[in-house]
């Protein structure tokens, strides 16, 4: 397991940041979703051993978060959401310093800093003061500083905030590469569902400090029993007309039809309509819910009282 939390509760005064959170996620790329105040940052800090939890226990990469905090942070790299810099340093010194803080020797650190700056695409700017970098460059710099010591787990907190589309694409490509080609596990916290979907295999949704949903993204995006996508060889409008006459709701797309079966009707009625219209169906498959739907469904479920939620794992 990449990390396991068991009955973790953390409160700040009257605010409950994490409420009896129990979750176990396997190694791989994990998306962390949740609205503002859901407890994402607190959970990340808990995993890094930066906060003292009120109750519960947890392990990250097999290390106890209460007793082996330094070892956890040694094995993890963290890219914080906020703009934060070591002052007065050029890019390469910045990354080398981050390496030295993890215990690398100065010579190793500087050599490795050059390597990772090449990787994140800052090789041309390595001798510029970090304060003069653009927002996107600073994000890349923080990523370089987080991976300089080759962590097993990389935690990215809103890494694409404030980035232009091209920079965002490049950063996502790097995250994907690290997770899928370099064997680095990823915890990717973001509000942007397409970013999570583009990078992650697993997702967990937090709300009000509780786990609302978790699992493989492909599994969570359930196949619908009443909604289908249909592709035809030609004349989709004839099929649409025949389906409408049969009482089936139809959405005519550019090259396909979306249809929704009302109660009492089945796929047999679709085939019959196609025969009547003289249209050849090339494919017919159930529609799958999007990650956004999964997310909204989880939040809806979470807005009920905890006792009403039968099982957090969707």
């Amino acid at each position, binding site marked *: 397991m990449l990390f396991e939390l068991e009955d973790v509760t953390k409160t700040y005064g009257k605010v409950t940041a994490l409420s009896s959170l129990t979750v176990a996620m396997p190694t791989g790329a994990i998306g962390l979703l949740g609205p503002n105040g859901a407890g994402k940052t607190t959970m990340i800090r808990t995993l890094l051993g930066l*906060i003292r939890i009120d109750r519960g226990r947890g392990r990250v990469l097999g290390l106890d978060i209460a007793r082996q905090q330094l070892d956890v942070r040694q094995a993890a790299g963290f890219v914080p959401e906020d703009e*934060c810099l070591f*002052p007065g340093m050029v890019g390469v010194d910045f990354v080398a310093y981050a390496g*030295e803080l993890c215990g690398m020797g100065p010579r190793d650190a500087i050599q490795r800093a050059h390597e990772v700056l090449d990787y994140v695409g800052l090789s041309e700017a390595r001798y510029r003061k970090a304060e003069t970098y653009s927002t996107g460059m600073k994000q890349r710099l923080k990523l370089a500083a987080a991976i300089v010591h*080759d962590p097993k787990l990389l935690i990215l907190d809103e890494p694409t905030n404030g980035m232009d589309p091209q920079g965002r694409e490049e950063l996502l490509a790097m995250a994907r590469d690290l997770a899928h080609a*370099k064997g680095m596990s990823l915890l990717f916290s973001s509000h942007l569902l397409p970013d999570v979907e583009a990078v992650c295999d697993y997702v967990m949704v937090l709300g009000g400090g509780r786990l609302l949903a978790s699992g493989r993204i492909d599994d969570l995006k359930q196949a619908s029993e009443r909604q289908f996508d249909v592709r035809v060889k030609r004349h989709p409008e004839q099929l649409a007309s025949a389906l409408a006459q049969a009482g089936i709701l139809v959405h005519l797309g550019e090259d396909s039809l979306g249809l929704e079966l009302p109660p009492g009707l089945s796929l047999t009625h679709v085939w019959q309509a196609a025969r009547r219209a003289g249209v050849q169906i090339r494919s017919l498959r159930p529609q799958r819910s999007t990650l956004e739907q999964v997310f909204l469904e989880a939040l809806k479920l979470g807005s009920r009282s905890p006792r009403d939620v039968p099982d957090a794992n969707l």
Partner: protein
Amino acid sequence: MPIFDQGYQHWTGRLASHGARWWAITRQGLRTQLRNRHTKYLVVSAWVPALILAAFLALWGLLEQKSAVLEPFMFLFQWLPEPIKQGPKAYRTTIWTIAFHWFLWIEVGVAMLLVLLVGSDLISQDLRFNAIPLYLSRPMRRLDYFAGKLGVIAAFLAAVMVVPVLLAYTIGVAFSLDLTVIPDTGRILLGAVLYGLLVALVCGLVMLALSSLSRNSRLVAMMWAGLWLISGMISQSVGSSLRHQDQRRPWEIISFTHNLHRVRQALLDTEAAHRQLQDLLTQAQKAAEAAASGELPGGLSSLPPPSQPRGPLARLFRPRRPPTHPELTQRIRSSAVEQNETLRNLLVSPYPWTWSAAVLGGLSLASIGVLSTRVRSLDRLK
């Protein structure tokens, strides 16, 4: 487009243990501060008094041996009272104490400037650029962070206070060619080194606390200057108005640097040096009075001849030209009183050194409190 794009490579090097993480911060701080030429000039100039101290101790060693090498330089010692010239070994501890005392007195001034230069942006810039989360999300504790930052100040202060003391002492011992110098003066070495470390610790903690109070380094520098200079000025002005009301001069504890000086007096035991010098001066006074009244066959010629000494020790041992009768006795008495007062002000404070130690300890504790509240852990709501 690179010809050969390596992509991401795994790293398999060795990492240092957690215990030495603070050193990475200190090392980086030293690198950064040494890029500042003002800091470099100040450190180099701080070594001038150290060279003078080392030269003095070397010459003193030669004087103890009555070395022929010293003959061309004997004019430097003509101003010394005759008993010292006759048996310098008996005054070794006293003279070394005073020499180290003066050296450290000067170096405290340099240290204050140095702390102002290197310490004001240590934490304030981290707060300004929000670097604290970057530090604390690494495998290090807040204590490592503080120790690393304190290490920067301590390293600079050790370079101008502790290292010169060790080198000058070694040179002094080497030139004395006498192993008894170690038991005679070992306490001075210990006291001086302890004092250097104490200054580094107290000044470091106070400066770090000030640095954590603002994101503006200039403001921090002004706060430090205020603590150093204004507290001294307030102490002086209070002292000038209350000088005759309380012989213990308790107002001196208002001054930050005076508290450091008072602790130094205790660590070096300058009071003992004062007593010995006072005895010497009293003897010289009696001899002069006896000569003036015609009791001494050699008259005032047995006292040290007049000379034009220079340097900090000169005022202490400045010989007086033999005056002529009838104002002779009065003048001898008044000059002895003046010398004794100067010595007492330099080497002895009338209030207990523990008061100053308590003030410095309190400042250090307050600084730790400020640091722990200003540089907070990440265990809080965002």
